[in-house]
C-alpha cells in the first residue's frame, strides 16, 4: 500500500498514529492544537473550510485523554482514536454551524449528530471542521458556492479547481500533514470527482450502505456519504466505521458490514476487470495516458483486463441524472422558507410573499436554476416525457451494469474526462457545459454502485484519477484493487 503522490513522507500512517495515541507516545491535546493551527494556515491560503470546529476538537481531545488515563479498556479498541476528521458542510455535527454551502442555512446549528458523525465520535475521531462545497452539492468544481462563501482552490495549483462538490474535503485530504480522513457526500460524483482533481483516494459506497440520517438532502434516491483519504487504508478504516444499518434511516441497508481493512493487499490475481471503451474517446491525452498506465499496473499484479462497451450509461446517463436529481432537489428545497432554522428576515407580507423574499435573496443562481429545471421536469404535461422517462432509463442503466458484473469483478473508466480546469476556463463555461463534466460519474451513481477514485498521476504534477466501479455491496473488491496503488 503506497501513500498518494506528493504526500509528505513524514506523515504518519493512521493506524500507527492511533497506536501511539493509545500508548500515550503522542500528547493528544498538543497534537490537536498543532493540527488546528496548521488547518487555519492552510485554510487562509486555500479556503477548504466553512467552519473550523476548534472548541469541539479540543474538548474531544481532552475527553479522550481522560479516558486513556482512567478507563483504558473503553478506548483500546477504538479505530480512530485522536484522528482528525473533516466533515462536508451538508452533514450535521451537533452544535456546529451546518450550511450545505448555502446562505439560506446560515446560523443553523444542528441539535443532533448525523449517524455517520455519531459513529466517528464513538470510534474516537476528532471533528476538525466543516468543509467547503458547492451550494447544496450543485456543481463539479466547487465554484457554485452560496452567497458570501469562499471558493476552495486546488491544493496542487491554486489557479485550478479542486473539483466538487466535496471540494474542501478533497483539498484538505491532500494538504494536511497530520493524520486526517474526510467524509464527503456524492449525488452524481461528488466524492470521486474532487478526489481525482486533488490526487487522493475517495470511495462512494453502495446506495444505502451508509446512513443518510443527518445529511442535508440533495436528491434522496442518489445521495451517499463516503470517505476521502490520502491512502486506501484510511478510506477502508472510515468506511467500516460509518457503514451499517440505522433505525433512523429507512433506506439504510440491513446487511452485514465487512472489515474493509482486511481487503488491503489481499492480491488481485485473476480478478476480471472491464475497461469501458466509450469513456476513452475524446478525453484529455494526459488523463488517458495516466489511466492506461494505471490499468497496466493492475495487469502486472495479475488482473485480467478486457475492453467492454457500456453505450447506454454513457449516452443517456447525463440527461437521466440531471432530470432525476433536479426533480428531487426541487422538492427537497421547498422546505427552506426562512422559518424555524437557518436564515430568517423581518416578517413582512403574507406567507407567499415572505417565503419568496427569503428564497430569492438567499439562494444562489445555480440553486434557482435547478429548482426551476426540476419543477419543469415534474410539471403536469411534461412529467411523463422527462421525470417518468428518466426513472425507466435508470432501470435500464442499472440492468446494463448488472449484466457486466455477472462476468467482471470491477469496471474502469477515467474519473473525469479532463484535468482540473483553471478558474479562468470555468468562467467561460455555460451551465450545460458544467453538467457535461459529470459524464463518467453520473451513471454509477444512478445505479447506486460503489466506486473508488485512485490517484494515478505519478510525477507530482496535476493529479489524474482513475475510477473503479464495483457491484452493489462489493466495496471490498474496490479496496483490494485500490491497495495496489
Amino acid at each position, binding site marked *: 500500500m503506497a501513500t498518494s503522490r506528493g504526500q509528505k513522507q513524514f506523515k504518519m500512517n493512521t493506524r500507527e498514529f492511533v497506536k501511539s495515541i493509545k500508548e500515550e507516545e503522542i500528547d493528544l491535546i498538543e497534537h490537536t492544537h498543532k493540527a488546528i493551527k496548521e488547518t487555519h494556515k492552510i485554510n487562509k491560503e486555500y479556503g477548504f473550510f466553512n467552519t473550523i470546529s476548534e472548541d469541539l476538537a479540543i474538548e474531544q481531545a481532552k475527553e479522550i485523554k481522560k479516558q486513556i488515563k482512567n478507563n483504558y479498556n473503553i478506548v483500546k479498541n477504538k479505530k480512530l482514536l485522536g484522528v482528525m476528521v473533516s466533515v462536508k458542510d451538508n452533514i450535521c455535527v451537533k452544535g456546529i454551524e451546518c450550511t450545505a454551502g448555502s446562505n439560506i442555512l446560515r446560523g*443553523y446549528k444542528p441539535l443532533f449528530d448525523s449517524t455517520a458523525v455519531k459513529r466517528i465520535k464513538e470510534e474516537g475521531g476528532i471533528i476538525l471542521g466543516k468543509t467547503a462545497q458547492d451550494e447544496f452539492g450543485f456543481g463539479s468544481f466547487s465554484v457554485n458556492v452560496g452567497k458570501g462563501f469562499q471558493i476552495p482552490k486546488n491544493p496542487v495549483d491554486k489557479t485550478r479547481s479542486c473539483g466538487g462538490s466535496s471540494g474542501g474535503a478533497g483539498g484538505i485530504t491532500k494538504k494536511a500533514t497530520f493524520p486526517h480522513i474526510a467524509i464527503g457526500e456524492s449525488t452524481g460524483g461528488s466524492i470521486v470527482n474532487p478526489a481525482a482533481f486533488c490526487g487522493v483516494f475517495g470511495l462512494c459506497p453502495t446506495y444505502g450502505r451508509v446512513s443518510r440520517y443527518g445529511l442535508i438532502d440533495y436528491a434522496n434516491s442518489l445521495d451517499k456519504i463516503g470517505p476521502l483519504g490520502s491512502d486506501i487504508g484510511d478510506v477502508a478504516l472510515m468506511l467500516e466505521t460509518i457503514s451499517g444499518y440505522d433505525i433512523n434511516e429507512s433506506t439504510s441497508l440491513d446487511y452485514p458490514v465487512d472489515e474493509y481493512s482486511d481487503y488491503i493487499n489481499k492480491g488481485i490475481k485473476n480478478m476480471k476487470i472491464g475497461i469501458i471503451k466509450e469513456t476513452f474517446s*475524446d478525453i484529455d491525452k494526459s488523463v488517458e495516458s495516466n489511466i492506461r498506465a494505471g490499468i497496466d499496473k493492475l495487469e502486472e499484479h495479475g488482473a485480467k483486463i478486457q475492453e467492454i462497451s457500456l453505450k447506454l450509461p454513457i449516452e443517456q446517463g447525463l*440527461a437521466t441524472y440531471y*432530470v432525476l436529481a433536479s426533480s428531487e432537489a426541487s422538492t427537497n428545497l421547498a422546505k427552506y422558507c426562512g422559518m424555524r432554522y437557518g436564515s430568517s428576515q423581518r416578517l413582512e407580507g403574507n*406567507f407567499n410573499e415572505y417565503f*419568496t423574499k427569503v428564497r430569492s435573496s438567499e439562494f444562489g443562481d445555480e440553486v434557482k436554476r435547478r429548482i*426551476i429545471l426540476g419543477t*419543469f421536469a415534474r410539471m403536469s404535461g411534461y412529467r411523463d416525457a422527462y421525470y417518468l422517462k428518466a426513472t425507466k432509463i435508470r432501470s435500464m442503466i442499472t440492468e446494463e451494469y448488472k449484466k457486466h458484473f455477472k462476468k467482471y469483478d470491477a469496471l474502469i473508466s477515467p474519473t473525469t474526462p479532463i484535468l482540473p480546469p*483553471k478558474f479562468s476556463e470555468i468562467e467561460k463555461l455555460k451551465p450545460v457545459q458544467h453538467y457535461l463534466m459529470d459524464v463518467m460519474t453520473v451513471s454509477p451513481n444512478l445505479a447506486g454502485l460503489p466506486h473508488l477514485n485512485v490517484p494515478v498521476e505519478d510525477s507530482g504534477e496535476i493529479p489524474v484519477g482513475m475510477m473503479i466501479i464495483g457491484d452493489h455491496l462489493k466495496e471490498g473488491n474496490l479496496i483490494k484493487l485500490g491497495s495496489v496503488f
Partner: protein
Amino acid sequence: VGEEILIFSCTKFLNNISIRPTMKTIIDFKIVEHLAKLSRLELSNEEKIQFTDEIKEIIDVFSVLDKVDTDKVPSSIQPVDIKNVLRQDEPEESFSQEDALKLDHNKKDGYFKGPKAV
C-alpha cells in the same frame, strides 16, 4: 493543457450525444416566469431572460431521453431493492421546546412566529 482542450471536450461531447431536440422545445420566457412563481422565486427581467436561454439549452440536451424505447421498462425510484421498514411506535425523548426555538429569531410565547396566513 489549456482552455482549448476543455472547450473542445465539451463541444465533442455535445456532438456525440446529439443535442438536436427530438421533442418540440417548449421552454420560453412565459414558462420560466410561471415555474419561478410555482417555486416561490422572484426573478428580475434579466434573470428571466438568462434562465430561459440556459434552461432551453439544458432541456435540449435532456431530449436525448426520447431516443430510448422504454415501453416495457419498469420505473426505478431507488437504485437497490428496498423493503418497507416499520418499527414500534414508541415515544422517545425529543428536542425540548426551548432547544428547538433556539434556531429561529422569529418566535412568540414559546412558538415559532410565521408570516400572515390570510
